[in-house]
């Protein structure tokens, strides 16, 4: 579904405002030496891995098992990203290597 220009601008404005808010909030709340609530510190530590796992599942929601082309490229490229990263630990190599592999698989092999 394509948004109208106004809707897209509104979406981007919301993303910008909320992103700024998450970055500015600690300064607004705690810059006078108040101690941050423990619950906030705790959630700040345990939420990120849970959110990233959630987003990975979200990214994989389009998988279909009806044909090999619906899941094999994702499995191979996803595995490549993880293995490359465990092996070399280089963000760019892992992301680009896996993406190029995925593009070759969906366009060439299973296309």
């Amino acid at each position: 579904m394509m948004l109208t220009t106004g809707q897209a601008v509104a979406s981007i404005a919301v993303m910008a405002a909320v992103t700024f808010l998450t970055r500015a909030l600690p300064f607004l709340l705690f810059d006078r030496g108040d101690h941050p609530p423990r619950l906030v510190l705790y959630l700040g530590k345990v939420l990120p891995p849970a959110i990233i796992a959630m987003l990975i599942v979200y990214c994989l929601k389009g998988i279909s098992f009806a044909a090999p082309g619906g899941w094999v490229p994702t499995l191979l490229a996803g595995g490549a990203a993880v293995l490359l990263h465990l092996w070399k630990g280089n963000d760019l190599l892992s992301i680009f290597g896996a993406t190029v592999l995925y593009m070759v698989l969906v366009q060439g092999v299973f296309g």
Partner: protein
Amino acid sequence: MNRKTLAAAFPFTVPVLMGYLAIGMAFGLMLQSAGYGVVWAFMMSLTIYAGSGQYLGVSLLATGAPLPQVAFLTLMINFRHLVYGLSMLEKFRGMGVRKLYMMFSLTDETYALLSSARPPEGVEEHDFYFCVALLDHCYWIAGSVIGSLAGAALGFDTTGVDFAMTALFLVIAVGQWKAAGSHLPALLGAAATLVSLLLVGAEDMLLPALGIIVLVLTLLRPRLDESRPAQQARSQEVTP
């Protein structure tokens, strides 16, 4: 900010230059293939300035997500920034108007640079921080504009380039997995999202998933909160 500060800050930012050009280009390509051209790429990178947030943003724009969902998901994916700010309170103190920009530009990478980099002899500390932040922001904008233009000009088949988002999240997850004391939050995140996907379907899966995650993590706090060991919690109960 003067030439000397710029010359001192630039070498510190080279790793981010490489990273932002590459990840920014993938963002520009993805956005282009979702039907949004170079002006959109420029505006998003100028005003939002968040790697994983903008990758998710492409998907939110492409699926026409309603504004409350856009707001909530952006909040969640950027939740980690709350922690970054807490450790920069001292560093940014006394920066005046520039502090607004320092808060705005506190990405993962700039945070990493600012927490480790020290200004060389004879360079004013706050000028140096500001310069590092500004350079990083320029790299990010440049990367996304180049990616967008390349996607439009070369006209090659970009089918599948959106896998860069999946790969980015997998890479972040591998790093978190290695550093984490407990893998429970990550496993919970995946499990809750799968449950939500099966219950409400792909369209509306994220909000229920987030609800479950926050609720269960709050309930698990006595077990997972390492900053509050059992002994300390007990002694707090005794002391009024």
